[in-house]
């Protein structure tokens, strides 16, 4: 694996074979990223604070409100997550349970928070690699911390793609419930 920004050092490949190079020219062209490292870093280190504060506020809210109970996986979540994945891939006809968040969602939404914490920790180790030299050492050194920070970002992109696909697939009532906080359910008993 080689990064990003001004110097394209990251790639996915084996030996001399490169499957994917970070980043292909079309990425730079599409987003007008070329030769804008300085500007990118200025944004990065201003919005890193917002990212950290937002993350802390979100976690604090889920704890205070008790919402964490819906989000953190329990002992049934793994089995359920597998079942959901099989169902979504059309490999199983067993419909996942209708709850606020199923097992697969619990794993996804909890790991994205852990990934966020990971981005803060690896980012700090890179950004202040002398003051937090012990942190960089803990993460396997400066270069390893860079790779970890980058892989987490790749993880966000993949999460985003799956998330959007699932929202589209789940349809309007689900999307509306995400925005409003309310879902219309059919009361079977009253029918």
């Amino acid at each position, binding site marked *: 694996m080689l990064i990003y920004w001004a110097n394209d050092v990251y790639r996915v490949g084996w030996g001399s074979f490169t499957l994917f190079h970070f980043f292909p020219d079309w990425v730079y062209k599409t987003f007008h990223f070329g030769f804008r490292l300085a500007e990118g870093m200025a944004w990065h280190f201003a919005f890193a604070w917002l990212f950290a504060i937002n993350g802390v506020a979100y976690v604090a809210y889920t704890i205070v409100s008790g919402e964490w109970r819906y989000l953190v996986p329990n002992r049934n979540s793994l089995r359920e997550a597998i079942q959901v994945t099989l169902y979504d891939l059309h490999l199983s006809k067993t419909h996942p349970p209708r709850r606020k968040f199923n097992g697969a969602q619990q794993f996804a939404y909890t790991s994205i928070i852990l990934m966020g914490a990971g981005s803060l920790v690896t980012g700090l180790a890179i950004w202040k690699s002398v003051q937090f*030299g012990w942190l960089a050492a803990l993460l396997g050194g*400066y270069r390893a911390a860079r790779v970890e920070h980058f892989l987490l970002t790749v993880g966000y992109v993949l999460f985003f793609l799956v998330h959007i696909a699932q929202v589209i697939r789940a349809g309007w009532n689900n999307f509306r419930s995400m925005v409003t906080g309310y879902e219309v359910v059919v009361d079977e008993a009253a029918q």
Partner: protein
Amino acid sequence: MSDMEPVPPQAPEEPAAVDEAAAAKAAADNDAAVDREMARKTRRSFLVGGIAALAGTGAWAWLRSRRLDDGVPWPLRIGLRVNEQFWRDWTGRYRLARTFAPSDVESPRPNGSAGLDDDVDPDWKLAVDGIADAEEPLSLTLAEIKALPKIEIITELKCIEGWSTVVKWGGARFQDFVAKYAPGQANPNGYVALETPDRGYYVGLDMASALHPQTLLCYEMNDQPLTDEHGAPLRLVIPVKYGIKNLKRIGRIAFSNSRPPDYWAERGYDYYAGF
């Protein structure tokens, strides 16, 4: 959620046929009430969400369109300055950069040739300017730098572009140089300016970083005299800063109470650029 609870079906008091009709009517009424309520909530939530999205996009557009301060929109330049002050206040001054084993040493790539266009002057001398205008600038030979205690360290040179390389450096501590040739010049809140002989490349350093025990005036790289492309005859090595601050081919060193100009900081980068 309390306002979302379905209207309870009417208690059965009438004969079965009437009862069924009443129940159906109640259910239909309930469905209509739910639809109305949900439509209201949907309108409200999407309106709030839409305004939030617009505000975010607006803030982004506003930030992007601000006047540039040394290559970046001024609010982001303030962000860089705030970060700098925060870390300068918060972090220990003499924490050391990681050092490596001789087996980790790599052969470094030359990167950047700003200020190195001319051939090296065989009569090169290092000019040293003090703060007080009355003082004559010093003019030092390489031998006078080499007369200072020689330090050898293996550190990682980290490029702001994303790569890094482990190198063995040999040279004199900047703090020893100051103690011998510029005593009394090191105002703790001041700055050091370094520039190439042609003034094509120049950096400014905060005094604490310049006096860091691993900051070297370096004349050897991986046990060999510096090559021209790596900054012969004398370069700066400052492991607590990004590579952009490790100026090659020093022509002049000056002490100052205000921030000296900095080549890359003028082109949008963080002035501090420190770890």
